[in-house]
């Protein structure tokens, strides 16, 4: 598998958990051709090295401080990413910054790194996303799917049986 999707963030901190949640939805509801790997990266930093080194391209889904209204979404590519990691909503942002820097230093940074980000509304103890962010999940998924399609991946909704 050359393409990986990593949802990062802390699911115990409400909106911060949007990354892992979107990753879970993509995994459950979509079928990708060729297959891609979808990882719930949680709050891990360097422990993700072992996962990202296999990919040529990765999409990181995360909360980002765009200095915009809650729910604003955008896509950051390559060199655009580091400045946005300066605002850290919680510990995991330190981990992601370290992860990307160390990966670069030891030469395993994927050729393409893209962040699909969203401005959070509430980052506090709790399991539920705010309504604003919940309402933006489809937009985040659409952004991820657009990138994948540009990369030549066929994305199809799976029928949700069971």
């Amino acid at each position, binding site marked *: 598998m050359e393409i990986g999707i990593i949802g990062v963030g802390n699911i115990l901190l409400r909106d911060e958990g949007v990354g892992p949640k979107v990753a879970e939805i993509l995994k459950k509801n979509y079928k990708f051709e060729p297959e891609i790997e979808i990882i719930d990266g949680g709050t891990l930093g360097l422990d993700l090295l072992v996962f990202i080194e296999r990919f040529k391209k990765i999409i990181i889904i995360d909360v980002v401080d765009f200095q915009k209204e809650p729910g604003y979404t955008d896509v950051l590519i390559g060199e655009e990413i580091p400045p946005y990691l300066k605002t850290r909503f919680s510990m995991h942002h330190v981990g992601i910054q*370290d992860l990307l820097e160390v990966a670069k230093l030891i030469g395993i940074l994927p050729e393409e790194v893209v962040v699909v980000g969203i401005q959070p509304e509430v980052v506090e103890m709790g399991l539920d996303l705010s309504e604003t962010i919940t309402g933006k999940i489809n937009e985040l998924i659409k952004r991820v799917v657009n990138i994948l399609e540009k990369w030549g991946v066929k994305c199809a909704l799976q029928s949700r049986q069971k």
Partner: protein
Amino acid sequence: MARLVIDPVTRIEGHLRVEATVNGGKVKDAWSSCTMWRGMEIVLKGKDPRDAWAYTQRACGVCTTVHAIASVRAVEDAIGAKIPDNARILRNIIMANQNVQDHVIHFYHLHALDWVDVTSALKADPKKTSELAKKISSWPKNSETYFKAIQDKVKAFVESGQLGIFSNGYWGHSAYKLPPEANLLAVAHYLEALDWQREVIKIQALLGAKNPHPQTFVVGGQSTPVDPESQNALNADSIAFMLKYADMALEFVEKVYIPDLLAVASFYKDWAGYGGFSNFLACGDWPDASGKMYLPGGVIKNKNLAKIEPLDHKKFKEYITHSWYKYSQGDVGLHPWEGETTPNYTGPKPPYEYLNVDGKYSWGKAIRYEDLPMEVGPLARMLVAYGLGHKDVKEVVDMVLKKLGVGPEALFSTLGRTAARGIETLLMAKKTKDYIFELAANMGKGDTKIADTDKWDPKTWPKECKGVGFHEAPRGCLAHFVVIKDGKIANYQMVVPSTWNLSPRDHKGQRGPVEEALVGTPVADSKLPLELLRTIHSYDPCMACGMHMIEVREE
């Protein structure tokens, strides 16, 4: 008098901030302010206790496995589940492997650059570096060409202007004492450690303990089946796989980490005189079949290694005199089972210059044992074991002391703390293999039981029960406290290693361990307080807090 502010990660609630006053080139007083993981009960209240571990493993950015283990143990303790022998061994393997990986990463990635000057490494002579490497170890990557290549790689990285992980060092600081060759050697191993750790955690992946999050735990045991005959279980191939990586781990520790530690320490022996503390607490871990812990628990007061007291968690109390909380009963000490988490922030509105350290100044509670602050972590574990005459521990500790030419009193210091971590890594790297062999032997006997299901059904539980789950996490004694009522979680409190080590002052005004350890530390340049970082990092505060970013302000 200058007051130094070390504020590694602004805008994060979960960070560590240290303020210190300096007088005559020495730290006169210090305050550590941090956020412990508070309010877990808000998330867990009313939830099924059997699911708690899946939530608690998310509590910290780095330590997923350790919280999963402490959590299943707490619930098992509460409901009286007894885990089968295979589960005990599997957990021992996971914990030992985690310990080794975490300590190596801490040393090279978070602590080494307090002692190693990366810019000096760029000036080193690769030939002399090769000679030094051959002198201290038989590790094969030691040629002149190899070190030249490393030097070029780091040079290119530095020249690209994106220093990244190296950007916050105090390069060229007068407190750096290593010759350029030793610096280059350490930088080479810093890079090797990054490659090594990716390999070594494959044991965790195989056991389902990192995928990237642990999947394998279950209240009552483990969920990854053990069956030598099955392709879909941990079998003979898995044993061989684990041994391969356990050997790789041990070899790196023996031939790289320990020689580096000794080589670096020999240039910094004065650090045996700074950064020490006097009380230590270990909960003990790595149980054998009889329940005896490989690393024993115990309490040391006032550096007295001749009298190690047994640990009794009922003597834990958390105070909030200087913490941003209020208790319903006022300024008292509460045992974690009775723990309360009502925030009461009285601090300045960020961004601010200084905290009001006379009042409340930390999100961390001041946990005390019989009203005394306690240091936890590898040094506490090694001292407790050493004091109890533990054969393996004594052997390695004495070897290290002899090689450095110092006595046991040197252990009560920043140098001792950093050395203890290496000593423990060597012991646990060896034990990892023992546990893998033990698992193989059990499988050979046809024992495939991995979980106790007798207590799975909440109907078998008492109407009300409470439990504690201890684990010697790499950073120190970790304890989860759970209260269960009618099959649901009624209270849940986590006492993490940093709660002990980074605690603020208590109701009696006693400093926490890091605060106390910093007093007396020499500071060559109050604008570049590298020396403080050495002691702070020697406690292995979590990754985020381990960053090299510092803000300094004059009073």
